[in-house]
């Protein structure tokens, strides 16, 4: 057939074009700067967190350069957008490592994206300090290069909160609980961990369900919780779903006395505007960070962040900054970036002071520590537990009234 000859010609030309492009090796890196690469969800479902983390990274880079850089060299960061898509994140990290030849990498935002991204770093034997790796699934793979720069993994993030509720005197302790959670490798375990503790203390589970990330309509869920008469709601949320749940509860006139949400309330002003200040009042959350805490470099971080971006830093930005701090600590202590295994070993055996407090790790890269429990009070995000580091001495019901 005459057609096939034309086809073959075209196919051949295309392949040759590809070959020509392949023959050029990837660009090499300038030896005078330290380049750090990261992929973040700047668009897509997790874009809020991605942008916040990017701000945290950028603040850290600027502050580091202002105080002389890393190992005396200026630091540059390349951030690529993965659009909340896992294979784009994988391909981004592949490119950052092999094409851009970055010296170091930092993690993406959300466990969903970091699970495969960390595998890329592991394959390339590069240190992977990760601001957002809360899923316990990340640490049973035998990886040696991954380190989570928050205080603890997801299953224990609600621990302090749950234990406090469990230890309330019987009169004040709620009898029934609802556990709606986002189907997500991070949010799910947070709620699982809380349920374990609360049900052991005799609080009956009257509603428990997982909803997909695309859920927008929470009315039926709220309906079910209301009908079941749950007095405490523990929600594993990302951001938008947490906001919608609150609004939906309002619409239905459903008012449980205690409301806990895993990530949403940490989004600062966005959350406040989303639910309305009155509705944010008394919402519990776990936080790795408090802007009022007197931790290492926190005051300077807040000042620089306000200068660059306006307003107080949300949790994801702080986590990003802390990841930078952890990376810097390892690099400075070891003195070089050539053998990243050495950096990993150093982190395993040492504690790093960060704006989140002191961080230290188990052999598998999961951190040993405790999360703070926060609560929105009067439009301000306060730390309420553990009591020794609390920034406020009251603890409230949802929408007001002390416990």
């Amino acid at each position, binding site marked *: 057939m005459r057609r096939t000859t034309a086809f073959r010609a075209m196919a051949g030309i*295309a*392949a040759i074009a*590809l070959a020509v492009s392949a023959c050029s090796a*990837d660009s090499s890196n300038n030896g005078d700067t330290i380049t750090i690469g990261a992929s973040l969800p700047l*668009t897509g479902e997790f874009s809020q967190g991605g942008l916040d983390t990017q701000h945290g990274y950028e603040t850290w880079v600027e502050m580091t350069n202002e105080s002389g850089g890393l190992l005396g060299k200026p630091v540059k960061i390349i951030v690529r957008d993965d659009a909340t*898509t896992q294979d784009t994140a994988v391909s*981004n990290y592949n490119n950052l490592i092999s094409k851009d030849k970055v010296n170091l990498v930092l993690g993406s935002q959300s466990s969903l994206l970091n*699970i495969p991204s960390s595998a890329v770093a592991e394959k390339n034997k590069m240190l992977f300090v990760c601001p957002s790796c809360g899923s316990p699934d990340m640490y049973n793979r035998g990886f040696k290069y991954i380190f989570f720069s928050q205080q603890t993994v997801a299953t224990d993030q609600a621990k302090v909160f749950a234990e406090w509720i469990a230890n309330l005197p019987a009169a004040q302790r709620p009898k029934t609980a609802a556990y709606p959670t986002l189907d997500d490798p991070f949010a799910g375990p947070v709620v699982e961990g809380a349920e374990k503790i609360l049900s052991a203390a005799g609080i009956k589970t009257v509603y428990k369900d997982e909803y997909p990330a695309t859920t927008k309509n929470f009315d039926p869920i709220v309906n079910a919780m209301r009908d079941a008469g749950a007095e405490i709601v523990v929600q594993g949320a990302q951001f938008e779903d947490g906001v919608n749940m609150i609004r939906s509860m309002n619409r239905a006139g459903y008012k449980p006395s205690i409301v806990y949400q895993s990530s949403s309330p940490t989004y600062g002003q966005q959350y406040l505007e989303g639910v309305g200040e009155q509705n944010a009042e008394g919402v519990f959350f776990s936080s790795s960070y408090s802007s009022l805490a007197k931790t290492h470099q926190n005051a300077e971080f807040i000042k620089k962040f306000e200068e660059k971006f306006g307003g107080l830093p949300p949790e994801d930005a702080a986590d990003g900054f802390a990841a930078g701090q952890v990376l810097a600590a390892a690099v400075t202590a070891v003195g070089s970036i050539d053998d990243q295994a050495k950096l990993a070993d150093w982190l395993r055996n040492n504690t790093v002071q960060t704006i989140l407090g002191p961080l230290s790790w188990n052999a598998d890269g999961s951190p040993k520590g405790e999360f703070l429990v926060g609560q929105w009070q009067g439009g301000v995000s306060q730390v309420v537990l553990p009591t020794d580091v609390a920034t406020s001495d009251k603890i409230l019901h949802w929408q007001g009234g002390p416990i």
Partner: protein
Amino acid sequence: MSTSTKTSAARLLDPRLQTMVTRAVVVVAAAVIVLFPLSPSMSAQNTMIMTLVLAIGASGLNVITGFTGYLSLSQGAFIGIGAYVGAVLAIRIPDVPPLVWVPVAGVFAAAIAMLLGLVTYRSRGPAFVIITVAFLFLAQFVAIQWVPVTNGTAGLTLPLPDWPEAWGNWPFHLVLVTLLALSLLMTWAIRRTKFGMGLIAIREDEGKAGTIGVNAPVYKLLAFGASALFVGMAGSAYGYYLSFVDPISMFSIVTSALIVLSVILGGRGTLFGPVLGAFIIQPVNTFANDTFGGGNARLVLFGGLLVLLVILLPRGILPTVAALLEKARTKGTVGLSGARLNPLDRPLLPVDVKRPAPTGRTLLEVRGLHKSFGGNHAVDDCSFTVPEGSITALIGPNGSGKTTVFNLISGTMIPDRGEILLNGERMERLSPWSRAHRGVGRTFQITRLFREMTVLENTVAPLRDFSVRQLGLDAVSGSEAARAAELLEFVGMSAYRNARAGSLSYGQQKLVELAQVLMLDPKLILLDEPAGGINPTLIERMGDLIRDLNAKGTTFLLVEHNMPFVVGLCDPIRVLARGAVIANGTPEQIQKDPLVLDAYLGDDYLLEAPSKAKQAANVPAVERNPA
């Protein structure tokens, strides 16, 4: 046209030169692709792996979308299914190298694809596309919810490759290259066999394909399986390459859209088109990702590309280029369809050919047929018989339901009530292809050939009876093609065997359609207005052919308006009016029947004597005085 010196342009267009050059180019291209991991650029290697996966997906889709004409937006799902099967097996049986599961994943994906084929049995066109979209999302849903097996949204992490670091990406690359080669081989093989002809027939005209014995549901099922087999395997290898399999990216509709885009861009139905398309799309995708970031610019780019492609280059690159080359090459030449049929090309049939002695058996019987369309009773208690070995005519005024009766007999429609018996066996509920396999063939009033196929391919496409062996028979050469060539010779169209059927004139198409039907070796041939719309020379040839075939034992049922033709050719005549048979008998009896004259001819019609060569001594012409 000057023949003394060939201009340089003509030399460039010389097919032989082109073939040599392109063969050389293809060999070079294949070498480059196979040896690609030698490239020092890791990111280029990564792009190549993704391109190969896309190319395999596109090549597979080509079978169901390119050949069979069913647009599927779920092809990406089979990459995902293959990836999941490979990952699940790799994790549960850790001692076996994960690449061993590649074939298993392919077979599993093919099985699921065939299931999808079953589900879409009744769907065509837009409904089919919608179902494939639903299937894609459903597969994603299952992957998310079936947590014990798939680990839900957390995804499955595969162990890192355990071969020496020096091997790099070679194992992945070679596996994918092999799969692409196998996929292309399969596509090439399908195109050459009767199976492939049948698929293209389904694409061109599914209803007609049924009447020539192509069992569309089974063909589609097999096509689905073929389209997913290597894609599932590629998915398994790809999942291993990523070390991570998750439901969101593995079942993304954007992947399916890229695959469809590759097929359309390159040229669907062509062998290398989808591969070419993939080799253009994936690097552009990667480039856009790197330059603009994963987000909005890339969406606008691809969306715009899709829209522009559909508007400006709907046939794809390769067919458009081929058409341009063909146009340049055939400039100033005369198309085959312009040549006149010379009636002396074929020797005339001897005048005294014997009619076969009537056996007395009835081949076809129609009893009490009813068919209505809404309030319109097109066929209303119609009953008649067709004796074995006869040339029976079914005549009647326009709107009497003749074509509907034909449709009911050939299986294109199902009657509301009534029975149709072939050799005593009831067949009114059988599918069109089952009837074709039992020996019923029909032609259409408005010819329905497969326009994009050549005349020879059209003639090879019919399936006499269904068997896997039959499907695998070579259509381009071999016994089937020889038989088809013979039949084309018989009807006088062998000079046109390589012409595109769509380029023939109406009369030429009718002859080819007859050859098609003869491929079935039918007992009964239904001819829908064989003498309609053609010149007298061709009408004569038609008559000759019919008589010749009848002498060899084929029974005919004709619908015709050309009275001389009918009277000269047919013996039993049935007259249909308002959906029922009103008269039966020989031409003489019909001509005299007042009911017939009233319903059909009108009472002021003058019946002409039939043409001289035939009805010499038979019937005195009946004259009626004009009222």
